[in-house]
């Protein structure tokens, strides 16, 4: 049975990651076959080298500097948002929270490579898909606080957002179900002759679920226009990625075995994340079929506010993770380009802090879970069916609402 190389009290040996130098992985043509690209499922696409320079074939064409600056700001905003919401959870203003610390690059880069109208089927750690689109934070916070402006009427755990107009499918707490739904959505788009594509999200742990493999089979059989994202952040609560079957192979290799072009990518490298997402989106939109991307990253925080990772992994693991911090890496690159500075970083952080604090104040004016200022109880009986059947009307009366 696999064991992680590090546990509390002794440091992780990260050589198991089998990293490749930046710039080494080749960039295939959009119409490349699975046989032609099988090596890339065991390699690692990286653009930023250790000094923050963009190198290799995936660095071309160069990404617009303004897009990179926006990406960096979105990552900073996500991290500040998470930190503030974590405190709010500790203050019992919400029941639960999940941060995306350390994984901010992946969703932020991918949403910038997608178009309006595309649909993401997220897992629970992709708040950056919303934040990078500048969705009003107050709307997101009202969901977290389950207050009277929560558009989901207090029905869902915090972080289980649903924002159709922002291409963000309703999150389910049942892992992996969304993966095959994304393929179905993409099939529907193809059936209708539409050019919209789907983007599916799953963690390394949930790839062990049947729905993951089913999704791959359906995506391959119907050549669905979908990007299949696997975030390998090394940990599913306390289960090391090898418990999901990652030892001596890769999660990208799962796709190769199913006939899907699959890449393994440095998930903490914003430039790689954008370049590969754009490539996969072009493949989907150009009718070249699905792409599976394994994003190698690290879950820097606890699984959720109900978890204590110091019980099962070294406390300083993230600081030793070889792929570093995605925010620092992009900031370093932008500084080389002369498009970022320490002063600007401080100023941006300050501005975003102020924005988040203001949004939180506005959201809290509509209530928090602590003060019980929620949607009316009568709404509990709505939306079970399109039209309320007699038995629910009767039960609503019995509930006295």
């Amino acid at each position, binding site marked *: 049975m696999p064991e992680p190389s590090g546990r509390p009290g002794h440091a992780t040996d990260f050589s198991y990651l089998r990293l490749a130098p930046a710039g080494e992985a080749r960039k295939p043509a959009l119409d490349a076959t699975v046989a032609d690209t099988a090596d890339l499922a065991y390699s690692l696409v990286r653009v930023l080298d250790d000094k923050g320079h963009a190198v290799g074939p995936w660095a071309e064409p160069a990404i617009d500097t303004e897009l990179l600056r926006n990406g960096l700001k979105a990552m900073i905003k996500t991290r500040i948002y998470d930190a503030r919401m974590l405190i709010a959870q500790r203050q019992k203003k919400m029941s639960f929270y999940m941060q995306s610390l350390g994984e901010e690059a992946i969703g932020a880069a991918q949403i910038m490579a997608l178009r309006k109208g595309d649909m993401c089927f997220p897992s629970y750690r992709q708040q950056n898909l919303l934040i990078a689109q500048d969705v009003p934070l107050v709307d997101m916070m009202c969901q977290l606080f389950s207050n009277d402006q929560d*558009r989901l009427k207090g029905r869902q755990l915090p972080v289980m957002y649903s924002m159709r107009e922002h291409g963000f499918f309703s999150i389910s707490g*049942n892992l992996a*179900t969304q993966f*095959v739904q994304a*393929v179905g959505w993409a099939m*529907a788009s193809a059936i209708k002759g539409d050019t919209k594509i789907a983007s599916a999200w799953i963690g390394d742990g949930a790839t062990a679920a049947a*729905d993951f493999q089913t999704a791959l089979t359906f995506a391959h*059989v119907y050549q669905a226009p979908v990007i299949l994202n696997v975030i390998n952040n090394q940990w599913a609560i306390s289960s090391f990625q090898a418990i999901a079957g990652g030892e001596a192979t890769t999660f990208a290799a799962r796709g190769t075995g199913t006939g899907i072009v699959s890449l393994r990518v440095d998930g903490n490298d914003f430039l790689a994340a954008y370049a590969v997402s754009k490539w996969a989106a072009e493949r989907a939109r150009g009718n070249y079929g699905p792409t599976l991307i394994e994003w190698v990253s690290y879950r820097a925080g606890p699984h959720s506010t109900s978890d204590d990772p110091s019980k099962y992994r070294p406390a300083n693991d993230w600081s030793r993770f070889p792929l570093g911090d995605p925010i620092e890496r992009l900031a370093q690159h932008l500084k080389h380009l002369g498009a970022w500075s320490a002063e600007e970083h401080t100023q941006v952080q300050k501005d975003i802090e102020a924005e988040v604090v203001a949004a939180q104040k506005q959201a809290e004016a509509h209530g928090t879970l602590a003060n019980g200022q929620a949607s009316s109880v009568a709404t509990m009986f709505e939306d079970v069916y399109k039209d309320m059947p007699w038995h629910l009307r009767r039960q609503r009366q019995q509930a006295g609402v």
Partner: protein
Amino acid sequence: MSKTASNQSRPMTMIQALRSAMDVMLGRDDNVVIFGQDVGYFGGVFRCTEGLQSKYGRNRVFDAPISEGGIVGAAVGMGAYGLRPVVEIQFADYFYPATDQIVSEAARLRYRSAGEFTAPLTIRMPCGGGIYGGQTHSQSPEALFTHVTGLRTVMPSNPYDAKGLLIAAIECDDPVIFLEPKRLYNGPFDGHHDQPVVPWSKHPLGSVPDGYYSIPLESASVFRPGSELTVLTYGTMVYVAEVAARESGVDAEIIDLRSLWPLDIDTIVASVRKTGRCVVLHEATQTSGFGAELATLIQEHCFYHLEAPIERVAGWDTPYPHAHEWAYFPSPKRVGDAFRKVMDESPGRPGSGFAASGKRGG
């Protein structure tokens, strides 16, 4: 019935009626797509989709990998996009791998997204026994669906209803579990397995309009009017109840529920209040079966009108057997015995379960 267009009727089996419903809806609504194991080129193992792929193309009617979870999961995604998928689970006995997608996803999507996303799916599945299918081709899992809030569960008993209800199910914006009693596909089987079944072409309910019509969900039908007791049943058992009434001489009013949940409580209550006696009948296993819900509803709505305890006839609480199929299947004799028991028992009779206190209201 409602929304009946003026169109020619002709004899159809239940298979032809179901196919006709899908044909009509594929023609009327570009968002309808049909898929499942074997349903495309071949037209399904029961031939319900035969000819539809050649008529509407492989984009609208197609084969799916043998993965019920994948079939329903993909349909949920298609529904979120705006399509109206109709999927076939080859036998109801095979739906279990799709449970997460049905229970946690399709049934909950409207609620959890506050109406932003919906899953207007129809999930067709042949159910019930009587075909020597053994335990994996004979089950009646309806109670597993009626327990799931957010689902509609429907089971027709004849070609006319099958078409009208399937059209209503496809048009419905809620996910609908559409159970097809496969023993009724070719005729109104009444449980006398040693006798030939009358073909639908010789039965009035086998006369089906060619075009569009729908039967509202949540509407039961009074299949046989009667005065002495009410039978609450659905699917194949409708005909078993009918023959049991004839053979026992009990003037039973047979209510064919058609929609199991949400159901037509008014028709049920009106009948039981009229007859004062009730038999609950289904082919599925008894314990925690849908009959338990029906008996409770009668207790809640009709207690003071009852002249005798409610009798329940169901499949035995065993897996569906193969060689002993006819010892398992609720026979006309078992149903007739239940009728006589309910008629014999009245308040005050020993063993009736009623105390003759005279204090009951009514």
